[in-house]
């Protein structure tokens, strides 16, 4: 199955990259940009039946740094045959 992990900085943690991109968008003349936050997408192919607990464990042990980041897990369904 395909799983997509979205890792984001926790609310309240300053995001210097997001801020720089925010300024850049304004510099290009886009109006109404109120905030920009940058995260990371990790897509994995996992054996069907991999448990939710195991995926959580992967996120907490490596994919996200729980001091500064939150994560969410999105299951994209069974792997299509190649």
């Amino acid at each position, binding site marked *: 199955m395909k799983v997509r992990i979205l890792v984001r900085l926790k609310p309240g943690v300053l995001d210097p990259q997001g801020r720089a991109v925010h300024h850049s968008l304004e510099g290009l003349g886009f109006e109404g940009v109120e905030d920009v936050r940058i995260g990371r997408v990790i897509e994995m192919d996992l054996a069907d039946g991999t448990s939710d607990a195991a995926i959580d464990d992967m996120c907490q042990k490596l*994919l996200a740094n729980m001091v500064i980041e939150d994560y969410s897990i999105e299951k994209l369904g069974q792997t299509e045959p190649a």
Partner: protein
Amino acid sequence: MSFRAAVITFPGSNCDRDMAVAIEKVSGTAPLRVWHGDDALPQGLDFIALPGGFSYGDYLRSGAMASRSPIMKAVVKAAEAGVPVLGVCNGFQVLTEAGLLPGALMRNAGQNFICRTMPLTVENNQTLFTSAYEAGETIHIPVAHHDGNFFAEEATLDRIEGDGRVALRYAEPCNGSRRDIAGILNASGNVLGMMPHPERAIEDVLGSSDGRHMFESVIGSLVSA
């Protein structure tokens, strides 16, 4: 006296040789060199150094991959047993990712890679690593990093400040670090992580010899122990 030290090399470490040279120049004994893929440390170590660099190309997060490499289990065990451990720059990032130190090192607030000599204040000189400095002394040590912006929650910051675990502070703003923190200790005081590079400041010809006292402090603590 022989000083039995080890310098860990990760793929992408680039200050390991400087660290080894600094340890040898100050202690008189060349440190052992340990590869990250080893799963055991040499016996009877007096000191472990995690050097600077860009381990694993900073993939995922700075220090994240290295902190999960085989040797780190042994480093964590040694740290818990009281062996002095110094992590410099990428080594500091590895120590936070390994959970030996609180907080995280984020991208510098100004986005720029910062490479210059910084004035630092020795906040606590009652530590294994700083006893050869005066309390409140200003020292000059180079920094060279992109991800040195120390972050921890306010409660954590209050706690480590209250416990004297902020060993070094930037004497002027550097990279956006909370409370200008440059180096912190673990709760038992035998693990120090710092972004500035003391190993690059051990001789006047390098621009500063202020880093020398850091190694002298560790060596001195063993003699007096």
